[in-house]
Structure formats: C-alpha cells, structure tokens
C-alpha cells in the first residue's frame, strides 16, 4: 500500500539533450559504471550541443517537460571545434529570456560533461532531478498564453 502511494508522488519529466561525442558517451559511462540517477531523465542524442535549436527546448516545455538540460563537450573540447561555444551563447540568452518572462530558474541547465565524466554526468542528473522535483510541475511555460 505504501509502495503504491509512493509511486503516485509527483515525478518530474526531464529531457536531456546530449551531444554524441562527450555527454552521450559520459552517460554511457555512468551506465557502465552503474552510477544511478532517476528514471525521470530521458536522453535525446544529438550530434552536438550546437545542434540544439532553442525551439526544441521550448517544445519540450510546451509538451509537458518539467526540466530540460543540455549537455555538451567542455568548452575547447567540442568534437566539431566550436559547436558548444555557439550553444553556450544561445542558451545563455534563452535562459535569461525564460527567467525574464517569469519561468522559474533552474528548469533549464547546461552542463559540460566529457566522455570520461560518468560520475559527473550521474551527479549532474541527480542534482537536476532534485532541483526540478523541488520546483514541481512546470505550468508556466505551458500556460503563458492562456486565452481560450
């Protein structure tokens, strides 16, 4: 009975965009090292953090995601040399805009995580889940224009 009740508690929905070369491999390493993080995180593989169009993030929020995290190679280590630098600017501006329109800080995050950083990947995901869990369900982005 108590098991069932626990299952019903709010679990956030988290979308993670991971670049193929560093972060996705870092996630794989977290997996092969059995470094757990909540099942709330669902990873989408992209070639590079620079591939992540802000529209994907907004789309995820609109569709009900409670948090979106973008993971890429560390600055300087991008497999394609520069993709993460553009991503960094794009996301800085997007996050600032989301904050501006009143969306809670912390629903979005960028983390640089190398293929060797399985532990960091797991730690980041645990932290992020905890943060989103504490923020609760994302209503604002789905609700920004509520006129029917």
């Amino acid at each position, binding site marked *: 009975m108590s098991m069932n009740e626990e299952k019903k508690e709010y679990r956030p929905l988290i979308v993670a965009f991971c670049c193929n070369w560093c972060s996705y491999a870092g996630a794989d390493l977290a997996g092969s090292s059995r470094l757990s993080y909540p099942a709330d995180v669902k990873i989408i593989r992209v070639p*590079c953090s620079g591939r992540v169009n802000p529209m994907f993030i907004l789309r995820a929020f609109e569709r009900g995601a409670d948090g979106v995290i973008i993971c890429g190679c560390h600055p300087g280590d991008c497999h394609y040399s520069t993709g993460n630098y553009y991503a960094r600017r794009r996301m800085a501006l997007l996050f600032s805009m989301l904050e501006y329109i009143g969306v809670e800080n912390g629903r979005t995050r960028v983390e640089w995580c190398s293929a060797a950083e399985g532990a960091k990947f797991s730690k980041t995901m645990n932290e992020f889940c905890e943060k989103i869990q504490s923020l609760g369900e994302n209503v604002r982005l789905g609700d920004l224009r509520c006129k029917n």
Partner: protein
Amino acid sequence: MQKIGVFVCHCGTNIAATVDVKKVVELVRYEPGVVFADDYMYMCSEAGQEKIIEAIKEYGLTGLVICSCSPRMHEKTFRACAEKAGLNPYMVEVANIREQCSWIHKDREEATKKAVILARAAIAKVNLNTPLKEGESPVTKRALVIGGGIAGIQTALDIADAGYQVDIVEKEPSIGGRMSQFDKTFPTLDCASCILTPKMVEVNQHPNITLYTYSEVEKVSGYVGNFDVDIRKKARSVDFDKCTGCGECSTKCPLGKIGKIPSEFDRGLKNRPAIYMPFAQAVPAVPVIDRENCTYFKTGKCGVCAKICPSKAVDYEQKDEIVTVKYGAIVVATGFDIINLDKFGEYAYNESPDVITSIELERLMNAAGPTGGHLERMSDHKQPKDIVFIQCVGSRCDSEEKGKPYCSKVCCMYTAKHAMLIKDHWPDTNITVFYIDVRTPGKNFDEFYRRAVEQYHVNYIKGQVGKVKPQPDGSLMVQAADLLDGKQINMKADMVVLAAAVEPNPGVRKIATMLTASIDNNNFLTEAHAKLRPVESPTAGIFLSGMAQGPKDIPETVSQAGAAAVKVIGLLAKDKLKTNPCTAQCDTLLCNGCSTCANVCPYGAITYDDVQVMDHGLRETRRVAQVNLALCQGCGACTSACPSGAMDLQGFSNRQITTEVDAICR
C-alpha cells in the same frame, strides 16, 4: 507509412533483470508504424541478427528499432545487419535501454516504463527516417606521429616498415624523449640508450620516415583520411644540409663556459651553451641556437659559432617555416612529464638541492650525465651514504590542486631499480624506501622488487613521509611513521629522492583541442573504448600511443605503439573511406541567403551560389546556401543558426528531434 520492426534485447540479464522485456514488446506493438515486435536473449549475436533479417523479409520492414545497449556500442552492427537484408542501414534507430536504463535504475517498474518511452521515441524517429547513402572520400596514404619519444618512434617505425610514409613532429631539437634521459630500464636493467639509440638512428635513416624536429603542430583541419596539418619548423639557426654535427660550435660558445643556461635534458643539473645538441646521441645530430639566451640574438654581438663553424652552417637569419602536409591518420604520442612539486613544500624540493626527483637521479647515475655517472649530492658533491626514497609524491592524491588521483604505475618499479643500481655500484649505501603500497603487477616485476629487498637489503618502510627537514649540518631529517611497527621515525639522510607523479605532457591539451580528440580530467587522451578500442581516439583517424593515453612503462608503451601502428596501417590500406551521410542539407526554397550558417560552419562547408528556383510558379534567381558534402561533418551548427529553417541535418532533422521530444513528453 513505415513498416517498423521493434527488437528488444535481453542482453543476457543485463537488461532483462531490470527491464520487463516482454512488457516492452507488448506495449510498443501498437505504436504507429510498428508491424512487428519481438525480444531475444542477445540481439547482437548471429542468431539475433538472423532473427532481424528474417523479420525484415517476412514483414517487409522498412524501419528497425533495436532496444539494446548504447548505439555507440552496436549501432554499426545493426546497420550492417539491416543492409544484409537489403534495408538501408540508416533506417535503423537504437533505443539505449541498457546504459541509460537498466544499468542505472533498480526499480523494475520504473525501468520498464522508461524503456518503453525510449523505444517510443526511437519508433517516432524511425517513422521520419529516410534512406541515406554514404559518400566516399579518398585516403591520403601518409601518417603523422606527434611526439618523438619511444612511443612515437616505435609507431613510426612500424608504419614505415609496412610501406607507408610517416612524419614525426617533435618539439625538442632531438627525438628520443624521456627514455633517452634514463640510465637503465626495468626489469632487466638494460641500458636505456643501448636499446633506444639504434631505433633513433633507424628512424633517421628510414626511407619512409620524415623527421620534423624542433617543430610543432600549429593547425589541424580536415577529417579522417584527409587531414591538413600545418607544422611550424622553428628556426634552428643552423643549416641542416651544411652541418656535419662536429659539435665545434657548442664547445666554443662563450655561454657554455659561463654556465647560466640550465640544460633541459639534464633537468637543470648541468648547464649548456646557447648553441647545443641536447645530448651526444641526438638525432638529428644538428645543433640549434636557443635564441632567447644567445648573446648574438640578444645584443647583436658575439657570432663566435658562425665564425668557427668549419662548414659555415650557422645561419642567424633563418626564419620559422610553416609547411602544410596532408595526412590520412594522426597518432598522438606526446608522452609525459612529472608534476611540478611547488605544492609539496613539506618535502623541501625547492629548498634543498639534495632533494631530487627520480628523473634527476636517472641523470645523476647516467654515465653521460652531469656527473659522469658518479652519484653525488648537488650541494657539496659528496657521495651520499644514506638515501631515502619517497614514493607516491603527488600520485593517488585526492586534492586536484596538489596532485593526481591516479597511480603513476612506474614508480614502484623504477625505485626498486634505482635502489639496486646504487647498491650495485656503492654497496655500503643505506637505502630506505617509504611506500604506501608496493605495486608490481607485470611479468618478472614482483621478483624484481623482492630482489631489492632480499638480495640488496633495501629497507622498505610502510608509511608516507610527513616532512623533510634540512638540518643545520647540511643533512636532511626525514620525519615519517613506520605504520607497521607503530613508531614515529626521524631518519637522517644525505639525499632524498622523490617519486613524483607523472602527468601528460602539458602541451597535449592544445594538441587534443586541435585534433578535437577528447581528453579526460587528468589530461590523458580518452580512448574510443576502454577495453575494446584502447589505441583509438573517439575521433576518427586519431590514434593514441604511450603515456599520452595513461601511465605505462616502456614495454607497455612499445606494445601500444605497435597496436596504434596496426590501426593506422589498416586505415591507410584502404583506398576510400565511407563518409557520414548525416550531413546538412539546404532547402533552397526556404533559404534567405543570409550567410548566417556559413558564419558558424567550422569546416567551411557552406558556400553561396545564385541558383534558379521555381517558387509558386515564379522563376527566380536566388542566392542560396550550398553544402559541400565532402566537407560537412554533420555537426548541425548551421541548422540551429538558420533563422528560416532552411538548413536541416539528415539523420537528426528538426522533425526527427521534435518528434522524439513529443514522444518522450507524451
């Protein structure tokens, strides 16, 4: 509409223990497009693949979703499998339900639910997949080896012997690397130069090897099979063709006598002239002028070397030269150095000349070294009677600012070697080794260490030293605790030798960045797979050799060098390589011609042309983006920069990614 087959792998119990595989099959069966779903013990096995092929034929599948391990593991396998059944390999998507699901979750229900969602995302994506065709690119049959130490030398020789051209770029004036500084090697006590020098000469004389010493890699562009590398040949100030290597210039250089320039090769234990060869057996045997210290370059006066050179080889006007060479493969063999010991003030390395590093000890014991092989204290040139070795200085250290978290792997063995060599020459020396653990895995390694204890009576004490205190009488007091005896020890020593942690050559970060090869927290290059692809970088066409990849001794380095060479040979033996078909594509009807995408393309793959288009029945000439598919590497930077959505990436299209988002957020 696609006809999709979903195949769920148990991976033995790796997946099935946590994910209810049968349930996944049941739940995905009714997803749009799915006409077939099944599970199997090992999908990647031959029988598993056979099952896939049969299903493709029987159900006329047009797309496959494999729920299994990471696509980084077996995507290739399943693509090849699809191709065998006549299906375009790019109609396959892998849902990672092992590394990103079963292995990290414990709750079966939760893991199963997640596996279903990941499968749905992959199914949704496959619904939008289109057949893609790989292109071909030629292979430049020439390899570059960065670093001319034993790793680089061995790799180059092996590649060259297989009949391919190899260039070695070495930043020092001579090849040879760290090994050339050593006196003897463990566990057989071979003389290092006796086994290294012949290889250095062979490299120099090999018809297939070109040496760029005193040179550095400046820029790398291109991709596997087709790298363009700019090499800066630093001005040597000595004409290579004229110099006979007689060494007259070095002997006459006035700075050699004043002795103000510490010799890098002798780790500062000796001085060198401004025009010098690092060591007698240097290859090439052509000196360089150290322009920063040379009096002529500083004041315009002197010029002694030019005057006395019998072959008029000294050329003060020489300039740095940049050559651009094409390569098919690149091997990183940049080696190691030891860490800076400034943060270990307790060992008084900077305070006392009699506290030295092991590599300095190598020089002190080397017959060609600063003391002619006679072991003496640098402070008073007396032979030390009591010598203390301290192990693990900076190794196995949790604090990032001080040391390194890893075991340096070679110190236990070389310390045993040092102890024995000293005892061999000067039997009445007292030697104490303070260790944390003695680690000697390797053929004949533990026997070697035991010999030091049993035969040479080297005193091994378990306990890291706390402090080395220089004493008023010039000796050193070593303060430690013998953990096994439970006593604090204050031991007088004449000399203390620190086994400082190894670290990758500091220059490797810059090189890795140029090569876009990934690097770990400790600046060691990352291998494509820790077990199965240990000599390859995840970046295609980049290979790893020696300490640049991780701590290892000479035998291991040589084996890895050979392995890297085989991988390079395997690549160069191909005439053509298949190229990634996941490239950017421009919809000319949507393109504004605004150039935004070209600004962010790291490969210069986007150009603009005026093309004729028909838009709503109107014929117009428009400036639109064109993607050079041979150059495009598929990063997708252009797609997210494009304001109009004209740029898209095959295999990771906007629609495919948004549909995955939708599937996950459903």
